[in-house]
């Protein structure tokens, strides 16, 4: 199994940490993982994206031009990455702020209202975990208990009390992801 993912949105949406938790979850189930962010000037107030690969084999290129899954959280990223999903691949997006919705017919498209759900849950910071939940419903590549172990590894101990909240957010995401096409 190899899963090649791009996660893209605004800086501050938790794009990089979502990728990190996913990667750590992969390690918890003995997989090879890589996580490569776009870094540099584009980080400053602009878009953020990270390429995450989980595989049962040694990972070759950590940067890619085509992905099995694109998780898209703003319009710029939609414009940039819709075309990069492999035919038959998956695109998951939060419709919040999206004006041009995806149009491809050769891929599977899902919607997750992460921003709205996180606000309703009373903590906008768990937005990325809601989206992660949506993704894991569509592609259950890592088991929930490995995600929790991954969270424990990637969060500082003083935040471990927030793990149940994150778990709830993932569950809410799983429940609310909607298949569009």
């Amino acid at each position, binding site marked *: 199994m190899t899963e090649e993912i791009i996660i893209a949105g605004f800086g501050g949406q938790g794009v990089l940490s979502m990728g*990190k938790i996913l*990667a*750590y979850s*992969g*390690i918890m189930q003995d997989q*090879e*993982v*890589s*996580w*490569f*962010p776009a*870094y*540099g*000037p584009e980080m400053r107030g602009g878009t953020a994206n990270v390429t995450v690969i989980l595989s049962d084999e040694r*990972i*070759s*290129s*950590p*940067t*890619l*031009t085509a992905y099995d899954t694109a998780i898209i959280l703003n319009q710029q990223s939609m414009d940039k990455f819709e075309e990069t999903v492999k035919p038959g691949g998956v695109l998951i997006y939060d419709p919040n702020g999206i004006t041009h919705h995806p149009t491809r017919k050769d891929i599977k498209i899902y919607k997750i209202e992460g921003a709205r759900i996180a606000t309703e849950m009373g903590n906008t910071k768990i937005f990325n975990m809601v989206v992660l939940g949506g993704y894991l419903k569509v592609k259950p590549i890592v088991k929930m208990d490995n995600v929790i172990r991954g969270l424990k*590894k*990637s969060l500082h101990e003083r935040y471990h009390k927030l793990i149940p909240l994150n778990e709830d957010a993932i569950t809410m995401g799983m429940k609310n992801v909607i298949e569009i096409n």
Partner: protein
Amino acid sequence: MGELRLMKGNEALAEAAIRAGVDGYFGYPITPQSEVIEYLMAEKPFDRTGMIVLQAESEVASINMLYGGGGTGKKVMTSSSSPGISLMQEGLSYMAGAEIPCVVANVVRGGPGLGDIQPAQSDYFQSVKGGGHGDYRLPVLAPASVQEMSDFVPLSFDLAFKYRTPVLIVADGLIGQMMEKVELFDPVPRLTDEEVIERYPWATNGKPKGQERRILTSLHLDPYKLEKHNMLLQEKYRKLEAEEVRFEMIDCETADYIIIAYGSSARIAQKSIQLAGEEGIKVGLLRPISLWPFPKQPIDDLVKKGVKGFLAVEMSAGQMVEDVRLTVRERTKVEHFGRYGGVIHSPEEVLEALKNQLIGG
């Protein structure tokens, strides 16, 4: 099995420094490697092992701190990125001349000049041809994964002290910034002062009672003496060439064509050879791990075996390819494909280049 962690290449390098029993890290921040000193400062290695971490006023000061510290027999290290490494060349030349061990990591970015902060491999010439003034070489190791960013730290120190020379670890922004699973090696305690004094009799850490003073210098005003000193250095370099060549081969046994690539480029090329395989083209990958000494023998063997051509893939306008050509000597085709200025080539365009330049060309 050692501890598993998800780490950036820069962080793995820093953690490995603590675990390898490094005595002192002296550095100056520069993107894309500032995580090294940030990690070290946050980890407080002084409390863990007694390791000193000092933010110097410049890369020039950093490298001269290595001169001083390495000259006393302590394990000292710095890291920087291309423009900072250029500033260190004078110090590296002095250390090569005075035969002072140290480890310097270069997380290469685009150049020339201030360039950009994206990954590049355009410091190959500077790394493998000496870099500063005078007749010298430095062993150069090129990690292609976060794991190797960790593993090459103790390896580099082994080489540095075995051969009394600075050793370069040449990575790039991609290896430095990416996170991967890394298995951390078990910590090695720092040598005690007494162990340092006993192991390295050349080191200047206070003249031993009843013995001659030690002098570390690269100055030999008598040309015949300097020539003799240089001959000794050359002997050392020949020994390194004979004993310290490192490389990896993937799918080369059955290959018609060979991609030669190191570091990040090797990772990308690995994907390209998979894509080639899917199209029925047999391509192998030769990955130099030691950029100097350069793996000439395996290239020569592949030529003799009758491969139809080599493609050097680099994030540069063509630097390592010169060493490939020197080895192949017109016996078969050698082409170069590179993206540069901080652009990373895609696996697909590498395959295209192979088809156009080697198969179709």
